[in-house]
């Protein structure tokens, strides 16, 4: 176990706070650590990929479990992994057996513990739901220092604690190990169809039309297009390829599939890293050009293209530390979900942000299937979700996002806690009507409230 005081931020690089960080290498180290926690409390931190302050705890203790990263794939395809394992570490052993993650976010550099705490979703949400819905069980170290193995079946108290932990942002205890299912992926390739759409309406109608028959679906939007081009974008839908049309990839191994060690190298850390930049190269001019180029480079329609699984799921993982491109003042990722009846909020959000010329590098629109209704703080609800990156340095950003919050709530939607860095307690409480249920479970398992974070304090969770 090591201990040092460091300033921590989330992936958005905003609002640093200083905490003592303890890196533990076994769950047994947690009991004495928790017994000695002061009044500023403790929170677990995974790979630091939540955008705001979910994994920081100013003046308190932050625990990292990077060393608890063992991965085992069972005969039936289930995975047992330490909470500190990255999804990147799970992909190679799974693919080598013709399997893949049941759910993956847009980066493979999140930990298993973090994926559970945020109940992450992926491009297959409309078919497969969120990560927490594929869990068989998880081991949670609770405030008393004891480890509880909990899952979707068991005593009512255990089941309630399990569902509160899924999407619970680490506030019920420290996840140390989990078992989750996987899906079939006979090759390491994806069959991808691409549709370029000239405006928001055509994009959204294409998304609804194409979601049946495709396990994966996601649209990139030109967040800077205005007027008649507002919301233009590129929809990609995909399925796992059953046969590999590009077997030359595996000439080295001589088989139909690369070996596990070849796969491990392919999905390891990025080879290009962005150094800290004093002045952000992302501004209205460069990003308008990037968005224009990206849009124009996409084919109007292309079906049956075979793409490597890594470049389909993780295009941004190619460049390490891309978050630094927004400069030292960092950025905000605004992500909300609204039911189908609230689809107009998507247009409103794009209009408001493009009206102030917010330079957006990444805007992503997705369909959501039914939410993980058992988990009170799980984010997805059936309908749409939009995520937009904007630099925190923009002057008018605060009032515009506050106004969009109201529109999201009126439409019956909510914000994503793993992305939030600027909402109010009232906006979160209104978006998550079962917050009180979560609070009472948390109160029951941790009466002294030792598990807390900057996010929990800021949003009075």
């Amino acid at each position, binding site marked *: 176990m090591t201990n040092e005081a460091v*300033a921590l931020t989330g992936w*958005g690089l*905003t*609002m*640093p*706070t*200083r*905490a003592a960080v303890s890196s533990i290498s076994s769950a047994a180290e947690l009991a004495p650590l928790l017994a000695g926690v002061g009044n*500023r409390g403790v929170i677990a931190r995974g790979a630091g990929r939540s955008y*705001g*302050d979910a994994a920081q*705890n*100013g*003046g*308190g203790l932050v625990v990292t479990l990077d060393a608890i990263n063992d991965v085992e794939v069972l005969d039936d395809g289930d995975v047992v992994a330490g909470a500190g394992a990255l999804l990147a570490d799970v992909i190679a052993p799974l693919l080598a057996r013709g399997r893949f993650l049941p759910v993956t976010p847009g980066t493979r550099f999140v930990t298993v513990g973090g994926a559970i705490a945020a109940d992450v979703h992926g491009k297959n949400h409309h078919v497969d739901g969120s990560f927490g819905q594929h869990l068989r069980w998880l081991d949670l170290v609770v405030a008393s220092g004891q480890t509880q193995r909990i899952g979707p079946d068991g005593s009512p108290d255990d089941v309630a604690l399990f569902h509160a932990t899924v999407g619970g942002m680490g506030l019920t205890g420290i996840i140390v190990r989990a078992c989750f299912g996987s899906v079939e992926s006979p090759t390491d390739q994806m069959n991808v169809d691409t549709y370029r759409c000239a405006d928001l309406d055509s994009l959204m109608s294409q998304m609804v039309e194409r979601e049946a028959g495709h396990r994966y679906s996601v649209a990139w939007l030109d967040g800077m297009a205005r007027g008649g081009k507002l919301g233009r974008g590129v929809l990609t839908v995909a399925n796992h390829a059953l046969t590999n049309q590009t077997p030359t990839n595996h000439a080295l191994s001589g088989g139909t599939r690369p070996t596990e060690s070849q796969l491990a190298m392919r999905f390891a850390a990025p080879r290009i890293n962005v150094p800290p930049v004093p002045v952000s190269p992302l501004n209205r001019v460069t990003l308008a050009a990037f968005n224009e180029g990206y849009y124009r480079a996409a084919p109007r329609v292309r079906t049956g293209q075979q793409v490597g699984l890594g470049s389909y799921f993780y295009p941004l993982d190619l460049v390490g530390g891309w978050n630094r491109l927004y400069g*030292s*003042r*960092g950025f*905000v990722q605004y992500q909300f979900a609204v039911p189908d009846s609230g689809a107009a909020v998507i247009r409103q959000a794009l209009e408001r942000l493009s009206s102030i010329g917010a330079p957006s590098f990444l805007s992503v629109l997705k369909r959501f299937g039914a939410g993980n209704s058992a988990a009170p703080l799980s984010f997805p609800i059936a309908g749409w979700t939009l995520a937009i990156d904007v630099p*925190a*340095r923009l002057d008018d*950003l*605060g*009032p515009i996002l*506050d106004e969009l919050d109201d529109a999201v709530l009126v439409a019956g939607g909510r914000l994503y806690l793993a992305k939030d*860095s*600027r*909402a*109010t*307690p*009232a906006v979160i409480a209104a978006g998550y009507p079962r917050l009180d249920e979560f609070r009472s479970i948390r109160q029951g398992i941790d009466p002294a409230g030792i598990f807390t974070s*900057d996010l929990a*304090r*800021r949003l009075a969770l």
Partner: protein
Amino acid sequence: MTDALARPTSLLILGGTSDIAVATVRALNSPVLRRVVLAARPSERRDAVVAALTGSGMRGVEVVDFDAADTATHQALLDSVFAQGDIDYVLLAFGVLGDQTDFEDNPDHAVEAATVNYVGAVSTALRVATLLKTQGHGGLVVFSSVAGERARKSNFVYGSTKAGLDSLANGLADSLHGTGVSVLIVRPGFVHTSMTSHLPAAPLSATAEQVAQGVVSGLRRGATVVYVPAALRVVMSGLRHVPRAVFRRLPI
């Protein structure tokens, strides 16, 4: 803690009735602000400030009795404010201007001004710095003045108190580097407020609202020093290097 846009959820204003402090509180208001602690001596003016802020829809306005000169009371008072929740920004906004002629005629008055402006600042700033370090985040906003950059014969007592305050804040800013706590030193020129209404305005003067905007933008940029108006940075840089024989004769 503040949000990603440097908007505070909580404020403590030491000297909570000054025009500049009130304008700054208004400028820092947003939907995320939910606690505003005004620390000042009991007075009709304090009551009026509370009524005005609350009346304009600000939530969570509290009042505590605070006397900058009564340093023996500071620790208990600050401890109790922080015990009720984190404070994102502390505004060190108390101070008296006084009158140079009066100071020269009644040195006791000069000592009183020095006690409030400098001794009170030493007492509060050091205690606040420790409390902010304990919570692992926060900012201290110190209202200094260009009068402290080079003392002028027309108000050198006031100028010297601000020089001491400014120097304290400068050193504190460096000592807090890497602790998650920051210091913002605000150096306005002549500001049109009730404290200066009896005086003729100087060149490059500002309103309390302009000072408040300077604070907001300084906090968002993570600056350590802001001048209001910004042009004063250049002017003061020049004035610091004017030969004494000339400086003495300047009508300032």
